[in-house]
């Protein structure tokens, strides 16, 4: 055997001319070393496992799910409307003004004495005899949907703009990033206030009669402002991510072994930047809720009678001395929602950012 190989013509000196006799059989113990000790896992599963070990992030997630359940179910259970005055047995109840939590008006007490059932006012009523709990529930609905819609808008615009800029590079990138620089340096809160005043006044006649009118001009103005101004941060992030990942050695290696652009984008660029982009979107939600509540607080947010958490807090200022709980309820909800999103975002970052892996 041995001489056979020696005698073989060495046509291709780099080809492996393996001499089997020179190898030893592996022992049982050595074979066991090759056993896979842990289950193979995907990037997503691995991240989720680490996320689940973070009690703060899990708690925030549970709280947010609870909030969503409450704002979906409560309007079906509570027999009051956010815009209508309280009614008892079909009669408008003008005595149900500014009641404390779980207080009943005279009319309601009479009705209950007669054997009727009255749903308790969990958070009392406001100065227009409306159930405050349902207003807070609708306010949370409005604020949360604003946060989500605005974040998704920022995500889509920023992702498109940033990836085009990062992908093409060169002169296109230069021009696109100059535009971003200018928008980035605009004082954002000033612009938001100005634009929502201007847009609020100009789009009213445009949308009159359409289904958009129901949403309210201020809200549409807020969304347009978000679409115009707030995507720049996301665009910068996406572009930066793409540029760094593109210049990494593993991308070069993949390209050298003949991977096509599609594969590189699918296997290398997207998995490496998706977590950062996703987390930044999650952190965009509280910032949108903040912005909306500021605008509502200055009287530029959602139009009455639709409540948002910010506008509820704003109305509560007038009767602050007598009815402080009217500020406390929406304020606590805002704080808890923003806190949960922040903690969840931090948790996601710790769990999914490949650079933080130990």
């Amino acid at each position, binding site marked *: 055997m041995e001489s056979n190989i020696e005698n073989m013509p060495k046509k291709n000196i780099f080809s492996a001319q393996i001499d089997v006799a020179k190898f030893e059989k592996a022992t049982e113990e050595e074979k066991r070393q090759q056993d896979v000790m842990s289950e193979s896992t995907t990037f997503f599963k691995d991240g989720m496992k680490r996320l689940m070990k973070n009690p703060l992030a899990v708690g925030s997630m549970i709280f947010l799910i609870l909030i969503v359940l409450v704002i979906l179910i409560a309007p079906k259970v509570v027999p009051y409307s956010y815009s209508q005055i309280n009614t008892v047995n079909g009669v408008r109840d003008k005595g149900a003004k500014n009641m404390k939590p779980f207080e009943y008006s005279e009319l309601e007490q009479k009705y209950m004495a007669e054997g009727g059932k009255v749903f308790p006012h969990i958070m009392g009523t406001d100065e227009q005899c409306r159930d405050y709990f349902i207003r807070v529930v609708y306010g949370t609905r409005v604020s949360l949907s604003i946060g989500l819609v605005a974040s998704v808008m920022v995500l889509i615009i920023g992702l498109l703009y940033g990836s085009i800029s990062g992908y093409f590079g060169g002169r296109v990138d230069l021009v696109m990033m100059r535009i971003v620089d200018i928008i980035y*340096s605009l*004082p954002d809160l*000033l*612009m938001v*206030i*100005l634009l929502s005043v201007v847009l609020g006044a100009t789009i009213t006649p445009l949308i009159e009669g359409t289904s958009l009118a129901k949403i309210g001009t201020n809200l549409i103005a807020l969304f347009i402002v978000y679409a115009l101004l707030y995507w720049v941060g996301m665009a910068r992030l996406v572009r930066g991510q793409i540029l760094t990942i593109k210049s990494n050695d593993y991308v070069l290696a993949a390209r050298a072994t003949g991977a096509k652009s599609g594969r590189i984008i699918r296997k290398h660029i997207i998995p490496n930047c998706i977590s950062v982009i996703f987390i930044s979107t999650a952190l965009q939600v509280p910032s949108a809720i903040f912005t909306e*509540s500021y605008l509502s*607080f200055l009287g530029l947010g959602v139009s009455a009678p639709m409540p948002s958490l910010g506008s509820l807090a704003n109305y509560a200022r007038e009767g602050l001395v007598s009815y402080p709980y009217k500020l406390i309820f929406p*304020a606590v909800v805002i704080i808890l929602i923003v*806190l949960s999103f922040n903690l969840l975002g931090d948790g996601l970052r710790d769990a999914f950012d490949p650079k933080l892996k130990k």
Partner: protein
Amino acid sequence: MYRYIIKRVLLAILTVFIVSAITFFGMNAIPGGPFNKEKAPSAEVQAVLEARYNLDKPVPEQFAIYLKNLMKGDMGVSLKTGREISTVIGESFPISARLGGFAVLIATITGLILGSIAALKRNGIADRIIIFFTTLATAAPSFVLATLLLYVFCIKLGWTPVWSPDEPHYLLPVIALSLYPMAYITRLTKTSMLDALGQDYVRTAKAKGVANHKVIFKHALRNAVIPVITYVGPMTAYTLTGSLVIENIFTIGGLGSKFVSSITNRDYTMIMGTTIFLAAIMVTMNLLTDIVYKIVDPRIKLD
């Protein structure tokens, strides 16, 4: 360096120009002029008024006139009160600046101290308490904090009187204004301090036998301050120009509340004046931050 500064100054001027253009054309797009009151003046009076304020000319021409006057430092007069815009800004800006200045100072100093403590006593009781409260403070909108402070300390406990122009009491508004940046700076300092403490030069200094406080102040804190500077610059601009909401709640007649009231009054010239002034301050602060950043940390490459 000089090329960079020139480039940034040009960008800053362009930004202020764009802000004023957006504001000017935006204001003019709003239906209903400043003279459309319930008791409308007669057509002749209206024509005279419009001619006086150049409102009868086409909008681009009005903008050109405005810019020309602005170069001379003339921001025009308020359409509502007839007062010089520059006088109004000159009166209200010092109030906002004093308020914001105190707030920035308190936020930065406390933030740096708390952040360093949290980093040095990592996972200790002090760290946990500091991080708990700062996390909470970053989740609370400033108007909620301000209203609660006002309610508890002014109305319920009566410890401080309500703000009046003659007897300004800065304590509560300053606290309300500084809580969020303080919490943010604390967290920022903690992260960068931990990062700095893990660096080789800190280990080398310790190995050489440098006293502990010297290691902390000379080696760790100096490097940990750099990211804080990038935040403090723009934050100063925002707080100096007056938080719109805080001034509104404490009824402080600063620049922020002037801006809000000019918007509700549709006082075009006042809106233009305050916006350009605020934008110019913010852009300048951003510019200064980037330059200071470069001086403090020579490793940073500009461009």
